[in-house]
């Protein structure tokens, strides 16, 4: 089954993801070349959403590995269930089994705890593996990940090598807090996710927020786009836009121009630090509103 990028675009729309052409193309390319995809972009532009939609498009399971500093193989790949192993040792000792037999027994599949990476390569139907914020993990982990992505097999000393049953579709995201290695970058297709343009953001609002009509959605999208151009510490992402749209809808606002006060009051949905809140004064809010509405 080969989908072209139009099919993917349609299917993305069907699962509620408003994609631009480039995203559809890169998702097609990922399928076509069987390569992992690295998504970069600022926080809140919807990188994780791409992976979720990809899973929905292929009706595949989404397996997510959230990276953090100090993430090691135990947390990412597999772990032995120590408590059960200890219990098993005690009970079997009572029966009088030999040490070798016990060891054989406790290092078997039954005592293996699957973590996301192992889970991803042991599924019958290829899942979507989302390695989120890979830049937060250490270099060592990155190297390990690279190895996994090229061989799709892991070796567990006590069990032997486990080969992938199916090759997962891999999406990595990065916020750019650390420079990723060239090797990892080259292994992946690359896509830089930017904030959606006004039209696309308006479409997203209409799709995700019931009770907001096209005109209001367009006003909101324009307003948010203007706010993003202000000198802020935390630039509001798409999730914030949706929060704000929902709030405005909840307040029964139909036209931003009519209710500058409500706009200013609810702008708290977009601004996440005190400094930004102070910077976006009533006057600024009204000035922006004058420009966009």
């Amino acid at each position, binding site marked *: 089954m080969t989908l072209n990028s139009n099919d993917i675009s349609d299917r993305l729309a069907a699962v509620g993801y408003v994609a631009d052409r480039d995203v559809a*193309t890169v998702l097609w390319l990922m399928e076509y*070349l069987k390569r992992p995809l690295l998504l*970069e972009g600022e926080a809140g532009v919807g990188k994780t959403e791409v992976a979720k939609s990809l899973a929905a498009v292929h009706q595949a399971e989404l397996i997510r590995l959230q990276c953090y500093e100090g993430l090691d193989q135990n947390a990412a790949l597999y772990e032995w269930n*120590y408590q059960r192993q*200890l219990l098993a040792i005690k009970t079997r000792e009572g029966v009088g089994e030999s040490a070798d037999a016990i060891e054989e027994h406790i290092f078997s599949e039954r005592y293996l705890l699957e973590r996301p990476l192992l889970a991803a390569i042991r599924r019958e139907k290829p899942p979507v593996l989302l390695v989120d914020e890979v830049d937060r993990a250490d270099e060592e982990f990155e190297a390990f990940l690279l190895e996994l992505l090229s061989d799709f097999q892991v070796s567990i000393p006590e069990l032997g090598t486990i080969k992938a049953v199916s090759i997962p579709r891999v999406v990595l995201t990065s916020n*750019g807090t650390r420079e990723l290695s*060239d090797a990892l*970058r080259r292994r992946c297709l690359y896509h830089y996710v930017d904030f959606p343009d006004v039209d696309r953001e308006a479409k997203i609002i209409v799709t995700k927020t019931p009770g907001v009509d096209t005109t209001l959605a367009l006003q909101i999208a324009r307003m948010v786009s203007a706010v993003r151009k202000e000198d802020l510490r935390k630039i509001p992402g798409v999730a914030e836009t949706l929060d704000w749209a929902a709030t405005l809808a909840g307040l029964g606002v139909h036209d931003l121009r009519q209710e500058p006060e409500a706009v200013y009051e609810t702008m708290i949905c977009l601004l996440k630090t005190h400094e930004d809140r102070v910077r976006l004064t009533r006057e600024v809010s009204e000035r922006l509103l004058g420009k966009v509405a």
Partner: protein
Amino acid sequence: MIPTEPNPSVGRPMRERLAGFARTLRDNGFKVGLTETRDALVILTHSIASRPTSLRSAFRSLFCATHSDWERFDEIFDAYWLGTQMRRMRALSGIAAESRALARRRLDTMSLQASNGQPDHVERRQEGDAQGAADNRGRREGASHFENLATIDFRHITDPTDMARAHSLAERLARVMRARLVRREQIRRRGRRLDLRHTIHRNVSHGGTPVDLAWRRRKIKPLRLVVLLDASGSMNLYTAFFVRFLHGVMDAFREAEAFIFHTQLAHVSPSLRDRDVTRAVDKLSMMAQGIGGGTRIGESLATFNRWHARRVINSRTAVMIVSDGYDTGAPEHLGQEMRRLRWRCRKVVWLNPLIGWRDYTPQARGMQAALPYIDLFAPAHNLESLAALEPYLARI
């Protein structure tokens, strides 16, 4: 309109053009290997290749590896594929001429690609006044030949051999600094705790009796140094030395990043990683050339904070700004950006060569605005003053 054949086989001329494109990308600093080219060929066999915009976005995802690649790609793609095509069609749109003007390529790299109108080294577009910063020399002023080279102000070193020695000393200093910093770190690595999970794991075969203990030690991140070097006209007596110092830093520190700014900020770590000193310094001197119009420290810092800080700064990062503090922008702006920078990193060190001058007080308004956010304000007019930094960095 671009690829000619509708059916799967890619003809020889197309393959050659693709190879030329890969070469162009490589010349522009893209890391393009055989895998990418092979995959590009695969893409060309697909019907998607018949639409230029789709092909461009597919190639973009394939060939780009970083955000800066991403931003430059379209321009290169258009110049290479569309520009040529336009010219061949004798179109009057002028796109080809435009792309050629963009290209400003140097004659020696032209050979085969000459007819393709591709931009060679997009990032080096401003080749204006081609004088290496190293050519600028200060006045000779009472620097006795017997004086220790370490204590002579850089701007007073004029003798070529002395200059060469000072350059290599600056570079060596950076290496020595790194070696000592690491040694100090290892002595500190003593905080040990028992690692329960690993202990149990290891001792399962002993029936759970902890025979073999596993310890956990703190992993200390190495100090990362981020250097922002002012390469404006007022600094030009010093730039050459600092470029050499930077090269040493980049080579020796496992984690270091370098930026150069005058009116704009440029990330120069990749050029500095060149092992060949002369070539690296050459490349950099070219970038270091200001286009005139003064120094915009505030704006350059803003660019840094906005686009680079998150990537290059971690919890053990010292930011070192080397500048005389003469800012042509608004001092409030500089102050604000300094405050943001201060929040992010461990220490801000400002090296100002002027401090070495007698009777210097930081009067420049920009300098005044920046001072409250600086942890260490130190001179950097000779080798001795650079060496004096080391114990400070070791404590971070």
